[in-house]
């Protein structure tokens, strides 16, 4: 931003028209030169300048991708804002090649009787923490579920969970806290397609059939060309598994709510919605998906930029955040360093595996059977016991949690002070016969996290591990 503002490479016309707070931003980044960023990032100032010029030369078609799994250090709202502000300087909000406006296909709800609720209602205050939660988030994340289960945390204590298709033991940070929260429960139901770790903690497991064996509700996600897609079974459910709609309907009827499930099955439910929406179910079922009318997605096509502030302007300087006691413009605060001899543990996904559960898929596991711990080549050589590519190592975190053995991938593709693991491996559930015991678990090593005070996200890149040769005494 410093280079782009200093060299006037930003979209001056766009910023003048759509943004407020440019002068404050300019003053704020004045000292944040590439030379200032060099020791932090390890990237040469000339390369930073070159990159800034290159990005600016393609604006507005230079997308600053927000990324996935963006909760790193507990200051993630501000980091995400910084990326969004850079996108604003490049004029890429609502412009061709940048962030486009999208829309959903309008679909009718299941035809309701008078007095029925057809949409999710606003969350009652009882679900929120007593202290009021986070200022800009109106609901808590999954870790808030664990918090609300602690006695005295929320307006009432949570006594039962129905966990649907989420392996909370590996998806939440600090598995020791999740386990403690479960101990506070009276009752836990897990609905899953796999015998994942969470099923081992459940009082009752309701095995759901896979997506290829069931009817599901219509899908109409936000897209450039709005569309509707239908999911229909390709084969009959195997074993004792049932579709989600069947589980919901049966549970409903057994607690006296049968009137709320007047449809015979998932297919009838979907057909009724399609009829009410004026869509031919037969055509949709044959084609799988139907496209709607393409909408105007950017200024060039006549759409206004997708800006959701009250005044319709991009706030480079946020008076709203300032009022809440936060930085009005993002600032860099160096994240805490780990103890000497340790590496910061980073995690992410590989394109072959979308979720932790796919580690148990034999076809996907053949080209990608286990995760590896990425270690910088120089750092691997400098270890007390040097590590070569393919060596088996153990990872020990700051709280003494051990994971492995896992193979080392010695590479130039990572900084010397960090190691990286693909998430979703190191399963322990006996039922995951194929994935069990392969690789190392990122979740087990994530015993600490840092909560973003603005929106409550759990920053997970605050754990540090030591690398030990496999086979060394615990």
């Amino acid at each position, binding site marked *: 931003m410093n280079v782009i503002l200093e060299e006037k490479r930003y979209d001056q016309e766009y910023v003048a028209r759509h943004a407020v707070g440019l002068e404050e931003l300019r003053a704020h980044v004045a000292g944040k030169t590439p030379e200032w960023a060099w020791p932090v990032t390890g990237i040469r100032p000339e390369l930073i300048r070159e990159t800034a010029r290159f990005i600016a030369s393609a604006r507005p078609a230079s997308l600053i991708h927000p990324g996935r799994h963006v909760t790193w250090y507990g200051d993630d709202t501000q980091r995400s804002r910084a990326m969004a502000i850079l996108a604003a300087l490049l004029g890429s909000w609502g412009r061709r090649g940048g962030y486009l406006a999208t829309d959903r296909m309008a679909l009718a709800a299941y035809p309701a009787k008078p007095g029925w609720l057809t949409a999710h209602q606003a969350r009652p205050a009882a679900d929120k923490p007593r202290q009021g939660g986070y200022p800009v988030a109106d609901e808590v994340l999954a870790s808030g579920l664990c918090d609300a289960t602690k006695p005295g945390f929320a307006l009432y204590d949570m006594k039962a969970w129905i966990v649907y298709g989420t392996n909370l033991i590996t998806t939440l940070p600090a598995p020791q806290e999740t386990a403690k929260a479960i101990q506070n429960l009276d009752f836990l139901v897990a609905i899953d397609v796999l015998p994942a770790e969470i099923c081992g903690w459940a009082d009752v497991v309701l095995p759901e059939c896979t997506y290829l064996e069931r009817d599901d509700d219509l899908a109409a996600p936000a897209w450039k060309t709005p569309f509707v897609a239908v999911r229909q079974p390709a084969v009959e459910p195997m074993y004792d598994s049932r579709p989600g709609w069947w589980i919901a309907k049966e549970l409903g009827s057994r607690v006296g709510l049968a009137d709320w499930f007047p449809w015979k099955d998932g297919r009838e439910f979907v057909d009724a919605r399609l009829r009410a929406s004026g869509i031919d179910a037969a055509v949709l079922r044959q084609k799988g998906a139907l496209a709607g009318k393409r909408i105007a997605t950017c200024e060039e096509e006549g759409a206004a930029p997708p800006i959701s502030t009250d005044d319709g302007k991009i706030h480079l300087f946020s008076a709203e955040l300032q009022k809440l006691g936060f930085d009005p413009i993002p600032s860099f605060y160096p994240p805490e360093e780990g103890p000497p001899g340790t590496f910061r543990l980073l995690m992410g996904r590989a394109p072959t595996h979308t979720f932790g559960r796919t580690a148990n898929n034999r076809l996907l596991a053949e080209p990608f059977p286990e995760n590896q711990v990425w270690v910088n*080549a120089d750092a691997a050589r400098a270890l007390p016991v040097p590590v070569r590519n393919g060596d088996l190592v153990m990872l020990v975190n700051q709280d003494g949690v051990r994971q492995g053995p896992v193979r080392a991938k010695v590479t130039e593709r990572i*900084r010397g002070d960090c190691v990286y693991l693909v998430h979703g491996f190191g399963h322990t559930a006996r039922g995951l016969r194929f994935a069990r015991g392969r690789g190392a678990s990122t979740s087990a090593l994530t015993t600490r996290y840092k909560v973003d005070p603005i929106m409550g996200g759990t920053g997970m890149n605050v754990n540090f591990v030591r690398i030990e040769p496999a086979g060394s005494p615990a």
Partner: protein
Amino acid sequence: MKKRYAMAVDTRRCVGCSACVISCKTENRLPAGGFRDWVVQETRGTFPALSMEIRSERCNHCSSAPCIDACPTGASHLAEGGVVMVNPAKCTGCKACIASCAYGARYVHAEGHVDKCTFCLHRVRKGRSPACVETCPTRSLTFGDLADAESAVSRLLRSRRFEVLRPETGNRPNVFFLT
């Protein structure tokens, strides 16, 4: 005109998801541990000044294929469109072809014969593309006939820079990597 089948692999689009590998395994019912295609990630430089290339690799269906010369029984042969094929009935599993291949494209099938990519000729004959090409979510793979100047693969090779693997062998590969 005689067909000359070829594939263009766009190394700038490929993200290395291995969907090509998995679709090949299911389409051709490959045994556990057997692969006809695979993904290579090559990194050059030192951190942070790096460049990387991701390639979906397979048999190059070389125009002068040493594996065909090496085969003592005639099992490895040239089929229509210049596709290098193995006839399992003639193959004794002697592995001379494996030794002669510069690309490691061949392996011994669980049933004893040597196996490799066929450009999915059984699909191509019916007018469909190879399974890997049809599956690729980033559309990195383009298959077609180089003898047809207007085919998608011919047009791509006219408009983009490309490389072949190990050109020094003189094998004249028919899989081209767009860079």
